[in-house]
């Protein structure tokens, strides 16, 4: 039995998970139009390789990865590309981004795929290439390109592959449902990923508020006969944070600014493991995902398998949205999600939950009151930071002190804001401060670059001027030496020429105009 460690802080908000009936999974209806953003992941957007008017088949690559930190996009069904343009996407900014729009034809015509059953015979690089080509990005919420995660480099040997089935955020049951309905695929996927990173052991961690998922994964492990450890631990928010679950299960902390691979772990979401299994064994790219549709404003909260690119409004209508005036729709969970400004925005690889709360269920935050220095936030912080200090420094834009107080260790879980009696939107301050710091670092790099270029140009101009000067001096010296050879003084000769001209002019009669 594995020893379970505790993390600092944490909170116990109402879970509200039963609302969406975890364990039941239905396909969502196919919408007439799919909108596929080119940036559904963290990193560089994909590059479209189809044209407007092209007919595409299900599973066809419609945009390819640009560089390492990028992920391709595939068509989730057959249809026609009707536009490649900026559309509303589900993003906190409410800005638009480039999307490929496909009008679906309902034929469900797919490319034929060949999977790899003998994946154990292949080396890691070939398998990673398949994962990359299948467009797999972390499905827990951040969308980190999985192929990059599977390549920690030779300096970081991996001991354990950790499947993070915590899903600690209230309301969300997408991973719970996946572990109940697709447990066999999850186990296979975990084995493939462990093979790729040459991990010696596989560990699956699930919070103890999901007994059905635990039973189902346990049964799947027994069926597979593989040596996989299943660990359960007490429910607490935010145990599902990558650094938090690692500390809970191993007792080791990921170093500040480091990644789990630094201490020999690779941590993946169950959805990512299933996507990797489908990419390798079935050869199928990532085109669908499980989304939790929940909240009391929905007549039938549920989990659905939806095509990536399905408009949010189509899914909410399917779940029977009874919209109140100024209905808020939250993308993600109530702790870390954000309100969507345009419901025509599509779901992406990172959409695990759409939450439609009634105004009484999740009331709008009251105006923030002044900080009273109660220190509750510091007690709740799972990263052992000092949120109230970070708050003051963020307001003062004191970047030095923010770095000193380890702002970048903040996982933006929202536990501090949840316990704050003054209702200060603390996490927003940290997000803003992080953005400002990243901005000024980028500006600094730019200005250093400009200085170098400016100075290089000055040097070049100076050398060019010096060269010209040297050439002029050389010409002058050559002329002088030539004159010396001829034996006549050129200056004397010029003076004499001028004198002769003058004398000529004087002898001529002056003309009056």
């Amino acid at each position, binding site marked *: 039995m594995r020893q379970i460690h505790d993390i600092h802080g944490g909170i116990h908000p109402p879970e509200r998970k039963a609302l969406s009936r975890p364990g039941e999974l239905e396909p969502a209806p196919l919408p007439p139009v799919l909108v596929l953003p080119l*940036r559904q992941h963290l990193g560089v957007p994909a590059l479209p390789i189809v044209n407007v008017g092209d007919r595409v088949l299900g599973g066809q690559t419609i945009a390819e990865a640009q560089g390492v930190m990028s992920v391709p996009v595939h068509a989730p069904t057959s249809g026609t590309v009707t536009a490649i343009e900026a559309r509303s*996407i589900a*993003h*906190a*900014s409410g*800005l*638009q*981004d480039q999307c490929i729009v496909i009008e679906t034809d309902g034929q469900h015509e797919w490319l034929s795929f060949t999977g790899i059953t003998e994946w154990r015979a292949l080396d890691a690089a070939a398998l990673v290439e398949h994962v990359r080509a299948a467009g797999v990005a972390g499905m827990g919420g951040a969308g980190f390109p999985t192929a990059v995660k599977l390549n920690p480099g030779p300096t970081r040997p991996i001991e354990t592959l950790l499947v993070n089935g915590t899903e600690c955020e209230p309301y969300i049951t997408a991973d719970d449902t996946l572990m109940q309905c697709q447990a066999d695929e999850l186990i296979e996927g975990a084995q493939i990923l462990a093979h790729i990173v040459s991990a010696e052991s596989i560990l699956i961690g699930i919070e103890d508020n999901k007994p059905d998922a635990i039973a189902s994964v346990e049964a799947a492990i027994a069926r597979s006969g593989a040596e996989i450890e299943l660990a359960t631990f007490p429910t607490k928010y935010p145990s599902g944070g990558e650094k938090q679950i690692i500390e809970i299960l191993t007792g080791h902390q990921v170093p500040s600014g480091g990644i789990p691979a630094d201490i020999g772990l690779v941590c993946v979401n169950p959805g990512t493991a299933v996507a990797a299994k489908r990419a390798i064994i079935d050869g199928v790219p990532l085109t669908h995902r499980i989304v939790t549709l929940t909240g009391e404003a929905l007549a039938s909260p549920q989990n659905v398998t939806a095509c990536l690119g399905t408009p949010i409004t189509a899914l909410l209508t399917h779940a029977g949205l009874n919209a109140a005036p100024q209905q808020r729709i939250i993308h993600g969970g109530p702790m870390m999600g954000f309100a969507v400004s345009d419901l025509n925005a599509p779901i992406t690889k990172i959409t695990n939950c759409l939450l439609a709360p009634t105004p009484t269920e999740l009331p709008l935050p009251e105006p*923030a009151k002044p900080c009273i220095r109660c220190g509750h936030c510091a007690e709740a912080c799972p990263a052992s930071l000092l949120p109230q200090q970070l708050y003051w420094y*963020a*307001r003062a834009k004191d970047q030095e002190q923010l770095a000193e107080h380890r702002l970048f260790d903040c996982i933006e879980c929202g536990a501090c804001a949840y316990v704050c009696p003054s209702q200060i*939107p603390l996490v*927003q*301050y940290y*997000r*803003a*401060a*992080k*953005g*400002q710091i*990243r*901005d*000024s670092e980028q*500006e600094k790099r*730019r*200005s*250093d*670059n*400009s*200085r170098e*270029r*400016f*100075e*290089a*140009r000055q040097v070049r101009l100076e050398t060019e001027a010096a060269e010209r000067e040297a050439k002029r001096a050389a010409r002058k010296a050559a002329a002088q030496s030539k004159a010396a050879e001829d034996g006549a003084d050129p200056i004397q000769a010029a003076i004499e020429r001028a004198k002769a001209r003058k004398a000529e002019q004087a002898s001529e009669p002056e003309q009056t105009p």
Partner: protein
Amino acid sequence: MLALLSDQPLLAALSALLGLGAIFGALLGFAAIRFRVEGNPISDQINAILPQTQCGQCGYPGCRPYSEAIADGDAINKCPPGGEETIQALADLLDVEPQPLDAEHGIEKEPVVAWIREDECIGCTKCIQACPVDAILGAAKVMHTVIADECTGCDLCIEPCPVDCIDLIPRKEGIGFWHWPLPEDRAPRFDIIATDTLARDAA
């Protein structure tokens, strides 16, 4: 000699002080030559803070001349591209009071890059000669283009262009540049303290 000094304490003290002065003077003089610092370290530090647009809006031909002028005592609020942030950083470095940006030299704007409308470019190379960071590519009678990543948005290429085919477009547009704003920047906050009579009287 010694006898004379011991008889005349005033003379002894004077000569001892003169001697010490000569020795330390020689030492300092030697150190000033031996450990001489090349360049002006304070102007280097100032130059590192300036935004390096090389635009000349401060009245000096580039960021380094302005940094040298600041080191010699010029005002720190003449740099519009750097804006408030640069003034604050300079005030911290030089331990002086930050001042508001001097509007005579321009106002703080969103960062921009130059963009050549390539169809209209006649290939005169005038902008290439004007660019302080060599960010324009091209040759005589062929189209020119701006290397957007290297352009500082200084607008020095606008004036020389004979056909006005250069635009300045915002550099930070799109979702990749967005970050969360501070909550107080989104909704106005009123933090007037009731006991602050000065603020109340002023209002």
